[in-house]
C-alpha cells in the first residue's frame, strides 16, 4: 500500500540554524500539507500546496517558513532560523483529488532545537 515517507525521523539543531524537512507524498496525490504537533498538544495545520504554489496557510506559517516541491517526488519544509519553540513533531500529509481530500500522513519528523 502506498504511503507518505518523511526524512529524517529525528533532527537535532542549534537555535538560529536552518533546517529542511523532507517528505515524499503518495505518488498520484496532488495536494500536500505540513502540520506540526508540539509535545502533548493537538496537531496544527501549517500550510497546503497545490499546483506548485501555496494554497492555504495558517498564522503559524510566518516568514521563517517556506515550502518547495523541488522535483516530481519531494516536498520540503524549510525553517530559516530555528527557535526553541519550533521544537515539535512535523507531519507531512498528501491527498488526491477526490472530493473528501482525505489526507494520509507520514510518520513525522521530530525536530529538537537546542
Amino acid at each position: 500500500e502506498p504511503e507518505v515517507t518523511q526524512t529524517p525521523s529525528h533532527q537535532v539543531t542549534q537555535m538560529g540554524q536552518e533546517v529542511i524537512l523532507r517528505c515524499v507524498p503518495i505518488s498520484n496525490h496532488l495536494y500536500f500539507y505540513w502540520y506540526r504537533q508540539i509535545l502533548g498538544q493537538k496537531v496544527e495545520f501549517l500550510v497546503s500546496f497545490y499546483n506548485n504554489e501555496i494554497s492555504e496557510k495558517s498564522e503559524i506559517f510566518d516568514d521563517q517558513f517556506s515550502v518547495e516541491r523541488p522535483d516530481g517526488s519531494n516536498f520540503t519544509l524549510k525553517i530559516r532560523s530555528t527557535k526553541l519553540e519550533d521544537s515539535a513533531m512535523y507531519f507531512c500529509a498528501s491527498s488526491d483529488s477526490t472530493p473528501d481530500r482525505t489526507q494520509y500522513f507520514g510518520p513525522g519528523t521530530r525536530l529538537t532545537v537546542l
Partner: protein
Amino acid sequence: AQTVTQSQPEMSVQEAETVTLSCTYDTSESDYYLFWYKQPPSRQMILVIRQEAYKQQNATENRFSVNFQKAAKSFSLKISDSQLGDAAMYFCAYSFSGGGADGLTFGKGTHLIIQP
C-alpha cells in the same frame, strides 16, 4: 473559524467492551467532512474513519462506527470489541469541502486506555 472540541482528555475501557469517544464541532458551512485519526505511541497519524456531512448514513469501518448528528454538530466514535492495539490518542478532525487544499482542524485528542 471552525473549532473542534473533544471533551474527554482520557477514557478507559476493558478489553472486548465498547467505548464511545465524543467530538463536537462548530462551523457555519453546510458541506464538510469529518475524520477520526488514531495516534499510537509511535506518533504516526492513522486514518480510522471519515464521514461526509451530506450523507445521513453513519460511516462504519469494521469495529469502528460513528454517530453523526449534523444538527447537534456532534461526531462521536464508537469502538466495539476493544482490543489492546486500540490503545492510542484519538483525534477528531474537520475539513471544509470547498474543493481546495483545506487544512484539517483537529481537536485536542482523547487518550484511550485499554484495560486487559
